[in-house]
């Protein structure tokens, strides 16, 4: 444990990160920075850029009032005949000064309050956060207006007042981030060594809180700039400092509207929009960098299926004399992103017979879940069926229209998802979610019988009727998994696909759920495709086993053959990693390495780099799927007849 601790927790969490490199890759943030840079340059070199002196009224006559844009005055003149372009350029200064200094005050106050609340916790936190909540509710702009109106509207005053009322969001964000960082290992370790609070905050917590503070600071700056311009617009501005809001106030209250002097009204606003938009873009860009979002969601239209290869006769599996329910023929699935294609599943065929339970095994990343999702076309948006058919009742699921497929989902083939995850909607009752499935597929289900049917289903999986109207968060992990099974059975499907339904549950509950599933299968005559990486489960429940590796079928056989006479080295290695109580005691070994990355598949056999018995041919030529018996297939050069 100790060794691990020192290994996994570097003394200083701060790594030298090239921030510029990260930021420059985000186009939104880059545009924001560029726009801010322009504003800063204009502010710095205002005297060089402006064509007149804003303070002098030399040479201005009454005929200069509200002149439209001309060669002499690029952006026209204002109510006292001054050059708007000049005022506009100088106005940049006030906005940036207020934005910078006011937000500096806000962030220092908010940062200290947030750090203290998060770090000390307890009463300090309670008091500070209650105070923050109160300040957050009190509308800040009216308060700022009142205070500036009661004091003097000098630039200093405005900066100060905006600054001391703009800290609430910062305090909240910093507090929650501090709380998250505080319990990390390196902080606990620093405490254990006896580092002082001050040292811990400065050296360990602040560096990790800082990135979020920077994003927040950008928003604080833009809201300070907006506050200043609003104050100036309603008449609270420093008469000695020209600002955009002030220009608008003068133009608006001194007749620009009635004489049609649009330039006096449009130009200053453009400055505010420029700077606020720049900050918003930068803030958004940085936010994207800090919290990268998934590029897709479940409702994005999927990629169409197609046939990339000539139809080959699919391999037949199973010795069952029962009729075939689900016939998977030469199925291939690709993931396409940024024009790059990765083969996730390649040429997999098998038949699921009535009442049969096939276990789909392999390590994580071997294409099990992809294959399962492809069967009813639940692949993520980047996934596509690039070859093959999924025949169910004479229809090819890979080629159906969305609507036809929707009608078959759940009523023909249902899916048991991992219940410990978020597979149930947290804001709807469990009973409601089961009813919904029934009503979708049996629209004329008698309303009176509906409730009884849901109770019957819950009873089937051992949940008492009183839990029907409870929400998922009121269920335990095991109950949630049972409820999902009940939901999967609600429309009397013939095929149930179970995707590692017990992974996140404890061993006792796991056993219960599996027994339940097996019992229901026999009772209701279901055909089940069971995805797992637990060979123990497979031995106990399955009729046949499909071992997948790197997206291809490694071996397929009935369960006895797989356990007693596996032929593929991968199956053999997998079995060595699991304890078998029926056989003499032996050492458990794991397979070194990990499954190949889908975008970098080895040229020959996909298992060759990890295979203990690989020879020269394996790294050059992919093995074909060889038939070894009536119901035994393996893809390995060693089994070639």
């Amino acid at each position: 444990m100790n060794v691990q601790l020192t290994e996994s927790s570097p003394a200083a969490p701060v790594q030298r990160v090239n921030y510029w490199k990260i930021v420059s890759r985000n186009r939104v943030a880059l545009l924001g920075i560029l726009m801010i840079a322009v504003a800063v340059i204009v502010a710095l070199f205002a005297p060089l850029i402006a064509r007149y002196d804003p303070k002098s009224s030399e040479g201005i006559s009454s005929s200069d009032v509200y002149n439209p844009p001309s060669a002499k005055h690029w952006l026209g003149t204002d109510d006292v005949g001054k050059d708007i372009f000049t005022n506009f350029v100088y106005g940049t200064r006030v906005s940036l000064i207020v934005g910078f200094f006011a937000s500096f005050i806000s962030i220092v106050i908010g940062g200290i309050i947030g750090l203290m609340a998060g770090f000390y916790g307890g009463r300090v936190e309670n008091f500070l956060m209650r105070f923050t909540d109160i300040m957050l509710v009190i509308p800040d702009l009216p308060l700022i207006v009142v205070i500036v109106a009661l004091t003097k509207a000098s630039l200093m005053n405005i900066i100060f007042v905006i600054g001391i009322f703009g800290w609430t969001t910062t305090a909240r964000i910093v507090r929650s981030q501090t709380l998250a960082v505080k319990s990390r290992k390196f902080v606990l370790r620093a405490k254990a060594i006896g580092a002082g609070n001050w040292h811990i905050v400065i050296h360990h917590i602040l560096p990790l809180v800082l990135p979020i503070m920077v994003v927040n600071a950008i928003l604080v700056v833009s809201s300070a700039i907006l506050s200043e311009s609003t104050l100036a617009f309603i008449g609270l501005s420093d008469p000695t400092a020209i600002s955009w809001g002030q220009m608008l106030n003068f133009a608006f209250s001194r007749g620009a509207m009635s004489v049609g002097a649009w330039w006096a009204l449009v130009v200053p606003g453009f400055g505010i929009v420029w700077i606020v938009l720049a900050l918003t873009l930068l803030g958004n860009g940085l936010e994207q960098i800090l919290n990268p979002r998934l590029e897709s969601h479940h409702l994005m239209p999927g990629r169409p299926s197609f046939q990339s290869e000539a139809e080959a006769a699919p391999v037949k599996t199973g010795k069952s004399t029962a009729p075939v329910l689900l016939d998977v023929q030469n199925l291939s699935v690709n993931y396409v992103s940024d024009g790059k294609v990765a083969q996730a599943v390649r040429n997999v065929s098998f038949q699921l017979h009535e009442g049969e339970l096939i276990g789909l095994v392999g390590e994580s990343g071997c294409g099990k879940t992809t294959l399962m999702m492809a069967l009813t076309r639940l692949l993520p948006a980047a996934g596509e069926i690039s070859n093959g058919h999924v025949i169910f009742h004479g229809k090819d699921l890979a080629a159906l229209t969305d609507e036809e497929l929707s009608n078959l989902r759940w009523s023909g083939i249902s899916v048991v998802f991992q219940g410990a995850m978020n597979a149930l909607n947290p804001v709807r009752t469990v009973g409601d979610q089961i009813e919904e499935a029934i009503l979708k597929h049996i629209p004329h289900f008698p309303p009176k019988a509906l409730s009884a049917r849901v109770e019957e289903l819950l009873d089937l999986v051992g949940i008492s009727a009183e839990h029907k109207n409870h929400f998922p968060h009121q269920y335990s992990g095991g109950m949630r998994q049972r409820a999902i099974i009940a939901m999967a059975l609600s429309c009397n499907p013939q095929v149930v696909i179970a995707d590692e339904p017990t992974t996140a549950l404890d061993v006792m509950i796991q056993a219960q759920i599996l027994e339940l599933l097996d019992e229901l299968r026999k009772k209701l005559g279901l055909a089940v495709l069971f995805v797992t990486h637990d060979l123990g489960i497979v031995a106990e429940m399955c009729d046949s086993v499909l071992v997948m590796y790197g997206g291809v079928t490694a071996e397929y056989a009935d369960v006895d053959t797989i356990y007693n006479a596996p032929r593929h080295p991968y199956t053999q290695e997998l079995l060595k990693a699991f304890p078998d109580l029926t056989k003499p005691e032996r050492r458990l070994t794991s397979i070194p390495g990990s499954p190949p990355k889908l975008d970098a598949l080895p040229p020959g056999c996909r298992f060759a780099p990890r295979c203990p018995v690989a020879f020269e041919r394996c790294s050059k030529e992919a093995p074909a799927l060889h038939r070894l018996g009536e119901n035994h297939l393996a893809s390995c050069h060693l089994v070639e007849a």
Partner: protein
Amino acid sequence: MNRWHLLQKKALWSLFTIAFVIVLNFFLFRVLPGDPARAGIKDPRLTPETIEALRTRFGLDKPVINCFKTINPLVLGACDVNPLETQFVIYVKNLFLGDLGVSYYYNRPVEDILKERLWNTILLIGLGQILAILIGMAYGIFAAWKARTVIDYGALITGLIAWSLPTFWLGIILLFWGSSHGFPISGKSTPGMSSYPLMMQIGDLAKHLFLPTVTYTIVYMAEYMLIMRSSLLDVLSEDYILTAKAKGLSVFQILKDHALKNGMLPLVTVIAINLGYTVGGVIQIESVFSWPGLGGALYEAVNRTDFPMLQGAFLLIAVSVVVANFIADLTYSYLDPRVQTG
């Protein structure tokens, strides 16, 4: 039971916040240099007797608070006075009687003026908020559903630009446009309208309400759209959406029955938190369109140094925001079952 408990707790905090606002409001106006005694009665033309009479009339002759010298560096109080005779106690007492003082400018009770104006503001905010929420939500949902398409990027860009527009400037631009397209440029009704039939009065009101409401809607719609979009993008990548899809539900059913309620939760929070901010926008809109509401009252009070009005308007605005926030909190706990049953 938990829900009731939560409601009590929230109500208590709201009351506490209101008390804090009352105290803050009182002391701001007594402590800061622009206090009524100096600002309102500083006219050199007044004789000392008149000043004294005015001070008595506004209650400024009494000590601000009872003996508080030890902790009070500004020495506001005086000892040996009846605590009930201090300005603070009188102020609080008057508040409970609904008396907010007399406006310097109108020379009428502040509460009478603000009472009419409160409803005008509620009308503007209510209408604008409903439109902004509806349009913003619909637009946000659509953008999230069509993620990474031209529709989505277009929504994002217009949203960010609209979000960056200063409210008062947008108002000015719309006013500029509206004044040349037959829209009234200020106020709530055309003078003399009250003698016309009711339908015409309503039509006149709608005409006056149009531009302020559009301004309000554009500014807040953008924000709600951006929040709804990002919250819905999160929701649509959740496992339960995949479950709903596997169940065979249509896209419309999934959006309506599974995504909307979850996706709305952050929006409700933001609406609640932003109520204070919304009021800031209302001040700007009402100033531009001379809409006779609370924000306009604040604007006028600033420009006329009408302190009783400023104080009253601020108090009413702050209290309304606290109450609205309380309502939003309740809505949230109604939407998210995890809050009530924890």
